[in-house]
C-alpha cells in the first residue's frame, strides 16, 4: 500500500486493527481500503478478540474496526472488553445484524460509529475510520492545549497568591469574587469567608490611599490601584492594595523626630544666646572690677613718685617706673579682652566699604607708632568690600600695627597692602611685611587668644589682637591665614564671605 500525503487529510499512514473472523469479509475490507483515496490505512486482521487484545498490547493502533460477533466473544461483551483494554483508541463497530439496542449501547459506551455490513459499506467504513482517527487526534490536541492552559493558569494563580499585596476581584455589584492569600492575611479571614461578601470594599474612583479598619479597633493604611478587567466573562474590578502602614508610621516617626530636633536646636540656640550675653555681662563687670584696683595702683604709685620721688634712689625710681609699666600693660590687656568678648555678640551690619581710603586713614592714625622710623607703605588697587566698617577698621588697625611692630629695626620697613586672588570668588586682601616673620609650624597658633610667639621684651602685646581679627573675619563668614619666612617677613591674607547684598563685581 502506497503512502501519499496528498491523498488525504490524515498526516500519515493510519494503523487499523480489524477484528474479523470471516476471511472473506477481511479480504473485502482490504480491497476497499486499498482503493480508498481519503485515508492511507494499513489493516491488521485479528480473527479473535484474544488475538486483537494481544496485538493491542504489543503495538499502537490508531483505530479498531470491530465485528461484534467473534469466536469466543459476542455482542456487547466483545465491545466492552475491548473498550476496557484500550480506552483511548477509537472503536468503530460494524456488524452483520442490525440491532438498535446494541447500536445505542455501543455509541453510549464510546463507540465512534455503528455500521451494518451490506453492499457499499466499504467507503462508509473508510470514512468512519478516517473521521474517528481525525476526531481522536483533534481531541488529543485540545486536551494537550487545555492542560497547557491549566498549567499557565496555575502559574498565574501562584504569582497572585504569592504576592504580599492584597488582590481582590469585585464584580459589578461589589461582591467579592476572588481574594488572594495577602487579602486573607490582611483581613484575618479565610478566602471562603470573604468571597461572596458584598459591599464591604467600596472604593471611590481616584482614591490613592485608604484606611482599612480591622476588627479589634486597629487599622491598616494601603495604597490603592483599581484596574477594570473581565472575570468569568463579566466586567469586574481588580483591586490591588499595597500595605503602607509601617512606611507611614516610620515617616510619622521621622517627622516627629524632626520636630523634636528642631525644638532642641531652638532650645540650644536660646541657651547659647543666653550664655553668650551672660558671658558678655560677666566680662563687662570683671573688666570694670579689674580696672578699679589698677586705677588705685597707678594713682598711688604716681603720688608716691611725686611726693617721695626726689628722696628715692635710682633703683627705687626704676621699680616705680616698672610698676607703672605693668599697670599700663594690664590695662591694655583688660581693654583688649573686653573688646574681644564683645565681638562675639555685637551685630555685624555690612555695607560696601572702600578699602583704599580706610587703609590710608589707619596708616595716618598709626603714624605716632612709627616714631620716625623709615617705613615704606605700599597700598594699591584695593577693592570695595561688603563689611561692617567699624569692624573692618579694627581688622586693619590690628594687621597694620602688627606689621609695624614686627618690622621694628628694619631699614626701611616695607609694608604692602594689596588684593590677590586664590581662585575664590571673594577678593583676598594681603598685608605683607619684611619683618621678623615666624616659623611655619606656628601659623595656626597665631590666631588663638593669648597666643604670643615673642617675649614681651622683644615685642610687646597682649595676644588678643589676631584673635580679635579672626573673630571679626569669621563673623563676616570669611577666613584668615598667614604665611611667613623667619627673618624675611610675614604675609597675612583675609577674605570676607558673601554678605546679604554682595558687592557688585566687574563683569
Amino acid at each position, binding site marked *: 500500500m502506497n503512502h501519499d500525503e496528498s491523498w488525504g487529510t490524515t498526516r500519515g499512514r493510519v494503523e487499523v486493527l480489524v477484528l474479523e473472523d470471516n476471511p472473506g469479509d477481511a479480504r473485502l475490507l482490504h480491497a476497499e481500503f486499498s482503493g480508498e483515496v481519503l485515508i492511507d490505512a494499513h489493516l491488521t486482521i485479528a480473527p479473535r478478540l484474544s488475538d486483537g487484545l494481544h496485538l493491542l498490547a504489543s503495538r499502537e493502533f490508531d483505530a479498531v474496526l470491530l465485528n461484534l460477533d467473534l469466536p469466543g466473544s459476542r455482542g456487547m461483551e466483545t465491545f466492552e472488553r475491548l473498550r476496557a483494554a484500550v480506552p483511548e483508541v477509537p472503536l468503530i463497530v460494524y456488524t452483520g445484524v442490525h440491532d438498535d439496542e446494541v447500536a445505542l449501547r455501543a455509541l453510549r459506551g464510546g463507540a465512534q460509529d455503528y455500521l451494518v455490513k451490506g453492499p457499499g459499506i466499504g467507503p462508509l467504513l473508510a470514512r468512519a475510520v478516517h473521521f474517528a482517527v481525525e476526531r481522536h487526534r483533534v481531541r488529543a490536541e485540545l486536551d494537550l492545549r487545555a492542560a497547557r492552559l491549566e498549567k499557565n493558569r496555575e502559574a498565574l494563580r501562584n504569582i497572585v497568591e504569592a504576592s504580599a499585596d492584597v488582590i481582590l476581584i469585585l464584580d459589578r455589584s461589589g461582591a467579592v469574587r476572588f481574594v488572594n492569600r495577602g487579602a486573607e492575611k490582611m483581613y484575618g479571614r479565610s478566602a471562603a469567608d470573604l468571597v461572596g461578601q458584598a459591599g464591604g470594599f467600596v472604593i471611590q474612583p481616584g482614591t490613592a490611599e485608604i484606611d482599612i479598619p480591622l476588627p479589634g479597633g486597629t487599622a491598616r493604611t494601603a495604597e490603592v490601584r483599581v484596574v477594570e478587567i473581565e472575570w468569568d466573562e463579566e466586567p469586574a474590578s481588580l483591586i490591588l492594595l499595597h500595605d503602607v502602614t509601617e512606611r507611614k508610621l516610620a515617616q510619622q516617626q521621622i517627622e516627629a523626630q524632626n520636630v523634636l530636633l528642631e525644638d532642641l536646636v531652638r532650645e540650644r540656640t536660646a541657651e547659647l544666646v543666653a550664655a553668650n550675653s551672660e558671658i558678655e555681662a560677666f566680662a563687662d563687670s570683671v573688666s*570694670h572690677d579689674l580696672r*578699679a584696683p589698677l*586705677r588705685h595702683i*597707678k594713682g*598711688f604709685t604716681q*603720688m608716691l613718685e*611725686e611726693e617721695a620721688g626726689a628722696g628715692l634712689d635710682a633703683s627705687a625710681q626704676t621699680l616705680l617706673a616698672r610698676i607703672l609699666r605693668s599697670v599700663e600693660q594690664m590695662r591694655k590687656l583688660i581693654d583688649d579682652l573686653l573688646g574681644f568678648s564683645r565681638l562675639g555678640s555685637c551685630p555685624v551690619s555690612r555695607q560696601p566699604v572702600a578699602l583704599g581710603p580706610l587703609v590710608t586713614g589707619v596708616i595716618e592714625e598709626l603714624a605716632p607708632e612709627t616714631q620716625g622710623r623709615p617705613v615704606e607703605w605700599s597700598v594699591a588697587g584695593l577693592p570695595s568690600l561688603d563689611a561692617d566698617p567699624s569692624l573692618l577698621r579694627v581688622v586693619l588697625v590690628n594687621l597694620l600695627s602688627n606689621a609695624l611692630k614686627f618690622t621694628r629695626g628694619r631699614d626701611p620697613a616695607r609694608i604692602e597692602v594689596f588684593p590677590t586672588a586664590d581662585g575664590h570668588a571673594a577678593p583676598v586682601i594681603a598685608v605683607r611685611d619684611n619683618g621678623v616673620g615666624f616659623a611655619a609650624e606656628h601659623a595656626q597658633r597665631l590666631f588663638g587668644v593669648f597666643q604670643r610667639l615673642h617675649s614681651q621684651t622683644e615685642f610687646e602685646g597682649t595676644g588678643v589682637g589676631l584673635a580679635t581679627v579672626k573673630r571679626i573675619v569669621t563673623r563676616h563668614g570669611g577666613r584668615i591665614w598667614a604665611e611667613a619666612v623667619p627673618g624675611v617677613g610675614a604675609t597675612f591674607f583675609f577674605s570676607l564671605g558673601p554678605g546679604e547684598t554682595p558687592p557688585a563685581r566687574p563683569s
Partner: protein
Amino acid sequence: MKVSTSWPVLVAEDSPADFLLLQAAWTRAGNGHTLLCEPDGTALLQRLRLPGMRAALVLMDVNMPRMNGLEALAEIKADPRLAATPVVMFSVSRNDGDVRRAYQLGASSYVVKPIGLHELVSAVTLIRTYWLGLVEAPE
C-alpha cells in the same frame, strides 16, 4: 552769681581708694571747695538735705551699693530744692546705656574716671575750671 569757694563739693563714692585719689587730684588742681564724700546715694541725699547745705557741685559715681548714682540723680532732679545743683557723673562705665540714661535724667556732664594721677588731675582741673570758675549759679 559766681560759685562761692565756701560751698563744698559733694562726692558720692563707695571706694575709699578712689576718693583718696580724687582728693589728691583735687588739691593738686587748685584751692578752695572742701570735698565731702558719701558712700552711696542715700547718704548723699541726706547730706544735701541738711539745713543750710549749699553744694557747689555733686560728683556722682554710678556703681554704688544701696542707691546707685542714677537713682540718686533722679531723686535730686525730682526735688525742687536740689534740682538746680549741677551733677557731674563720674564713673568707670563707658556703657552707652548708662551715659544716655544719665543725660536723660538731667546730669550736667558724664565723665569717665581716668586711670593715672596725672590724667585724673587734668580731668579735675577741667571740671573745676568750668563748673566752679566759669558758670553762673542761681542766687
